[in-house]
Each structure stands twice: as structure tokens, then as C-alpha cells.
């Protein structure tokens, strides 16, 4: 998020697209409700489904799934056509406006309506509301990123903010909502194949040399190596970008990756196209699974290492507004389970490294030393101040409440013209429905944690498929009846929930349930840049079956 949670009520207009905020980020959604109900802010919601937030929305645009870019480009078209763009901001802080304006010039409200199904008048009204607001902020989540065009979707939103200057102020900005609790931190820490901690490029020679030095790779003489020294087998850091998760799966099947080490993840439930993942996990020569439970992925492992839960260790998480906050132990880990950082340290030393970390606080000190955006963060400081928002370059820096106030990280904000493309897989006569996937409030991701809470389980106990009443009638399906949902990749059985929440022609499933993992159905086409698999749009058919749903 470029803004902070506490700034949400400062916005006059809140534009939410591809985020079921009340279900996925409930406490943050309270701030949106406060803005609307308490401060008179106007909420524009763009979502095919009639989600709870629609009840608070001034405008609800129900675009056909997979047509976000068309919708956003049309909004931009109207803003320019009506002269509502911020020319001073465009002049002073951006580049690439001309090409962008030329592209959206073609996206008249009529064309927008034809592609997205949203009435032209609603698109025009949304454009006026957003552009005329004193402060407007945009929020999005997986609904925007989980398409083959995910990166382009985000760029299209960036264009909107640049066009109107709604960025870099209190209550004005671009706010991706991160899903799992520490996605932000996992990315910040370099849990990505192309960057070291702090988004420093692995292909940048100066950066790589800095890390080789900091990590003690290039100590030519016989001096004792610094704490955290690498294994002597590694003489230089890898110069090439590594593989993403979907590429790892392919590389295993191609016989190029032979060992997979998984810490605290369950790709066997959360990956698209599970049959493909299953083959890879069966095929890989050696699989290590380090987690708090033996989950679906762990069933394939050779060695399973028991880890401490968040309630049993020291450390930090970074939330969706870049705020680093303390995690503190309240309990002893069960049995012989150990904090992940101790397990990794022990393993590194068994492989010839020389690591002597005594505490998570010490690791954070090293993070601060090599990661400029975390430069001023330490456990001691977090204990004193509470959370700190990065960038926080020095120990006397207060942290950063909102980003891009006077300039962008790259200097000028870049308009990127993005062309609309249809989703890879569209419904046809054999697979006539669009399947959309998402979360329900009461469960978390693979459900490894929340499904073990008897209370939560009874609130949302079964796999369901939401079907519009008209479609249900055509199928002859009753509420609660089991149906088989099949795609070109697999099939699952789920119970029908008849609801007008999704539009006709679109069915909706969640992926919290191993038994009816919706990801058996989803394709593994990926966005070419961010490598995010396409979850939100795939084509399926629905048939009535006799067998009961396994629970």
C-alpha cells in the first residue's frame, strides 16, 4: 500500500476493484465502512459479484470477469475527454502520457460497455467521481492480480492514479491488499528469484558484489570469516535470475530440479492445476517439508521438520501497509518443534557454513545492514515504538506513512499503455460457465490452520459452488445438491448454493478445502511478467451427480 490503513477515512472517493475486502481483510474493511458511513466518502466498487461491500457502494460496476483493463481504460478515456485529468501533475511528475492518451482514445464508453457489460453511464459516473475527488485511493487484491493479464491490470490502475494525480498524498494512492499475513515481508526479504532483500536486483553487478561481501563469499585470505559465512562450496553468488514457483514445477517435471525445500507453504492446495503439482512432488528426488502440520504437500516429503508456530517464537511480520511489527512467544513449542530460524541455522552449519545467530533480533540487525528500506529497524526500536513503516533508512528515521510524496522510486511516474486481451480460456458450448475462485471469511488460504478450529469449521463446513438462480433452474439443480464441476484439467464435487451474488454464466468456488480443491480445475497459464497463475477465469461445466460431497 502506498497509503496507511489509518488514512482510509481521509479519502473522499475509494475505488475498490478485485478485492472482496470485507471477507479477505475484514478489519481494514471497517475503515472503508467508516469512511463511507462516518465521513460521507463515496465508494466505487468494480466486481462481477454482489459482495458485501456492494451494500456500501455508491456505484457498483459489474464487469464481465477478465475485462478489468477494458473497464479501467474506458474510465481513463472519459477522464481525458471531459478534461478532468491533472495536467500540472502529468507535466511535472510523469512521462509517457501521449502514447497512453492515444491508446485510451479508442476506449469510448460505448466500446467499454460492449466489452465489459457495464452500462456506459455508470462508467462515466465512476470516472467523474474518481477524477473530481480531492483525494481518491484505489484498493485491489487477488481479483486484479490473478489473471494472465495481472501485471497489466496493475499498470492500468497506476495509469489512472498518474492521470489524476491521486498519489503521494494523505488518503490518495495505490493500495494492493496483501493476502497472507507476511506476504509483504516474504517479498521484502528476498523470497523471490530475481531480488535480494529490499528488492535489490540479483542481476545488478554492484548489488551482487555488495551481497557477496556482506555475506562473506569473497574473503580471499585466511582471516576468520564473519558470522553468517556461507558454505565454502559457494564461491560466487548465482548470477542468473532463479525460477518462480510455476517454473519450479515445470523444471521438476523436465528433470532439471531434483530437490525442493518447502518452509511453511502448501503448494499442494494453493497451486493452480493441482494434478500437475502432484506429479512434480511425486517426481522430485528429494522433498523437505518444514511446517507446523503435516499438510497435503508434506504427504509427499522424504523428511518432515517440525516448526514452532507464530505463538512460540520471536520475530517480525510486515503488514500490507509496510508496517513491521513484533511477533512474541506466548508458549513453548510442542514436543521437539523448533523455530524455523534455528532449524535453518543448524542445517547451514551442517553444510559447512558458519552461522552463529543466537536470536531473531540478531538476524534483524543483519537484515537492517544489507537492506536499505529496513536500515533503521531493530527489535529494540520496535519494542519501544510499536510498528515502523518502511522505508526506514536510518535508526533515527520515523518510518514512512505514505509513499511517492515528492518523487517516484524511478524518478518520473511512467504511463504504460496496456491493451485489453481476452482471457486465455473462455466459456464454450462444452464448458459453458466461467469459474471464479476466492476466499470465504472464515477460512484462511489452504485452511491448514483455520480448519483445525472447531468453531470456525462449523460456520463454513463444506465446499460450495455458487450458482445464479437462473442457471440453477436451467440445470435443474436444487440448493444443497451435489454437482460435479469439470474443466479441461480435472473435476471436483461440491454442493450447490443458489445465490444471485454472481452474475448468470459465472460460478464461484473457494479453495479452502482439500476435498474439493478448486485448483484441480484451474489452468496454469501465468501472467508473463509477475508469473501469477490465472485463477479468476477458467471455463467449466456443471452436472448433477448422485455421490455425496466428501467432508
Amino acid at each position: 500500500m502506498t497509503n496507511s490503513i489509518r488514512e482510509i477515512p481521509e479519502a473522499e472517493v475509494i475505488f475498490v476493484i478485485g478485492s472482496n475486502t470485507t471477507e479477505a481483510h475484514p478489519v481494514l474493511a471497517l475503515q472503508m465502512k467508516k469512511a463511507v458511513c462516518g465521513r460521507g466518502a463515496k465508494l466505487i466498487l468494480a466486481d462481477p459479484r454482489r459482495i458485501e461491500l456492494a451494500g456500501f457502494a455508491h456505484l457498483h460496476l459489474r464487469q464481465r470477469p477478465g475485462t478489468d483493463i477494458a473497464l479501467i481504460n474506458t474510465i481513463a478515456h472519459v477522464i481525458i475527454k471531459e478534461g478532468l485529468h491533472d495536467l500540472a501533475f502529468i507535466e511535472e511528475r510523469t512521462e509517457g502520457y501521449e502514447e497512453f492518451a492515444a491508446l485510451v482514445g479508442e476506449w469510448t464508453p460505448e466500446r467499454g460497455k460492449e466489452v465489459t457489460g457495464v452500462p456506459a453511464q455508470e462508467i462515466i459516473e465512476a470516472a467523474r467521481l474518481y477524477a473530481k475527488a480531492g483525494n481518491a485511493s484505489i484498493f485491489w487484491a487477488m481479483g486484479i492480480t490473478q489473471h494472465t493479464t495481472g501485471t497489466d491490470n496493475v499498470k492500468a490502475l497506476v495509469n489512472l492514479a498518474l492521470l489524476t494525480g491521486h498519489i503521494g498524498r494523505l488518503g490518495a494512492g495505490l493500495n494492493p491488499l496483501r493476502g497472507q499475513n507476511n506476504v509483504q515481508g516474504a517479498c521484502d526479504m528476498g523470497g523471490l528469484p530475481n531480488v535480494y532483500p529490499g528488492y535489490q536486483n540479483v542481476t545488478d553487478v554492484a548489488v551482487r558484489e555488495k551481497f557477496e561481501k556482506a555475506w562473506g563469499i569473497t574473503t580471499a585470505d585466511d582471516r576468520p570469516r564473519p558470522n553468517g559465512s556461507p558454505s565454502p562450496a559457494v564461491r560466487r553468488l548465482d548470477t542468473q535470475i532463479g525460477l518462480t514457483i510455476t517454473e519450479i514445477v515445470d523444471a521438476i517435471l523436465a528433470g532439471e530440479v531434483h530437490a525442493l525445500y518447502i518452509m511453511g507453504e502448501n503448494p499442494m492446495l494453493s497451486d493452480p492445476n493441482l494434478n500437475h503439482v502432484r506429479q512434480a512432488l511425486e517426481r522430485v528426488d528429494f522433498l523437505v517439508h518444514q511446517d507446523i502440520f503435516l499438510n497435503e504437500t508434506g504427504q509427499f516429503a522424504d523428511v518432515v521438520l517440525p516448526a514452532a508456530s507464530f505463538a512460540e517464537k520471536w520475530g517480525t511480520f510486515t503488514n500490507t501497509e509496510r508496517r513491521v511489527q513484533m511477533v512474541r512467544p506466548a508458549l513453548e513449542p510442542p514436543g521437539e518443534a523448533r523455530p524455523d530460524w534455528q532449524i535453518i541455522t543448524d542445517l547451514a552449519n551442517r553444510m559447512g557454513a558458519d552461522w552463529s545467530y543466537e536470536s531473531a533480533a540478531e538476524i534483524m540487525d543483519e537484515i537492517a545492514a544489507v537492506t536499505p528500506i529496513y536500515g533503521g529497524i531493530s527489535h529494540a526500536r520496535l519494542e519501544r515504538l510499536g510498528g515502523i513503516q518502511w522505508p526506514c533508512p536510518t535508526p533515527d528515521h520515523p518510518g514512512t506513512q505514505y509513499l511517492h510524496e515528492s518523487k517516484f522510486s524511478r524518478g518520473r511516474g511512467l504511463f504504460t499503455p496496456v491493451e485489453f486481451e481476452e482471457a486465455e480460456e473462455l466459456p464454450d458450448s462444452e464448458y459453458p460457465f466461467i469459474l471464479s475462485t476466492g476466499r470465504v471469511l472464515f477460512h484462511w488460504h489452504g485452511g491448514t490452520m483455520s480448519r483445525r478450529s472447531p468453531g470456525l469449521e462449523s460456520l463454513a463446513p463444506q465446499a460450495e459452488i455458487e450458482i445464479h438462480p437462473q442457471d440453477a433452474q436451467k440445470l435443474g439443480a436444487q440448493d444443497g445438491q451435489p454437482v460435479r464441476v469439470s474443466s479441461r484439467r480435472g473435476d471436483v464435487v461440491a454442493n450447490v448454493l443458489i445465490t444471485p451474488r454472481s452474475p448468470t454464466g459465472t460460478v464461484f468456488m473457494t479453495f479452502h478445502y482439500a476435498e474439493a480443491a478448486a485448483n484441480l480445475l484451474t489452468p496454469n497459464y501465468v501472467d508473463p511478467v509477475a508469473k501469477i497463475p490465472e485463477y479468476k477465469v477458467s471455463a467449466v461445466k456443471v452436472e448433477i451427480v448422485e455421490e455425496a460431497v466428501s467432508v
Partner: protein
Amino acid sequence: MLKADRIVQTTCSYCGVGCQLDLHIREEIIFRVEGRFDNEVNFGQLCVKGRFGYDFVHASDRLRRPLARASRRAEFSPASWDEALDRVANRLKGIRDQYGPRSVAFLTSAKCTNEENYLLQKFARTVIGTNTVDHCARL
């Protein structure tokens, strides 16, 4: 109202909002969770997951010991930490030496701490020598 043996302030582990909460512990059980007011994240609020979702910490099927097996067809059996870690170290070393550093892949975790994510990518990059480190956040 039951009195806690101790109250520990921490961060909710369910979603990216990062609500600040108090875990109330009695006889080594989390028996109550309360939202904290002294912050600019949740202002005292919690959702149903943060408030009632922490039974998993005490679940009977938590992993308590390392497990290992000779082959994929065999059942898991308990192992000591030494046995388990030596086995992992030897196999990773063997595979790295035979097929090169890029034959080993790592998934770090959007559920683990910053410190743990940092260490695992450092392990991949400096002990194995590969940039193949990713996580499921794209999903």
C-alpha cells in the same frame, strides 16, 4: 472472568492487515484473544479469525518430532533432529554436487517471520548457490 497467567502482545498471523492482539494464556492454553487499542492498524478490533481462530496452536496433530522415511513408499517414522538434519544436509549436498546449485529449489513462506524468510533465502543463495527461491504469494 477467568484470570490469565500471562498476557502476551503479538501480531495476528492470519492476514496482511496485521492486527495487534493480546494472547491470554492460562495453564499453557490460549483461552482468550483481545484486540489492542494502542496502534493505528486495528484500533482494538479483530475479525472472527483473529479472535477465535487460534485453536490450531494446540491441535493434537501438531508436528512434534522430525519424521523421515527411506523411500516414498515407506511410512514416516520419527527421527532425532540429528538424524533428520544430517539426512537433509547430505542429500542437498549430494544433489548440488551432482546436478549443480540450480537443481535445488526453495519455497519460503508468507506465514513465517521476516527473519526466517531472510535466512532461508540466504541459505539458498550462499549455502546452495541458487536464486531459485520463491513463495506462494503469487497465488
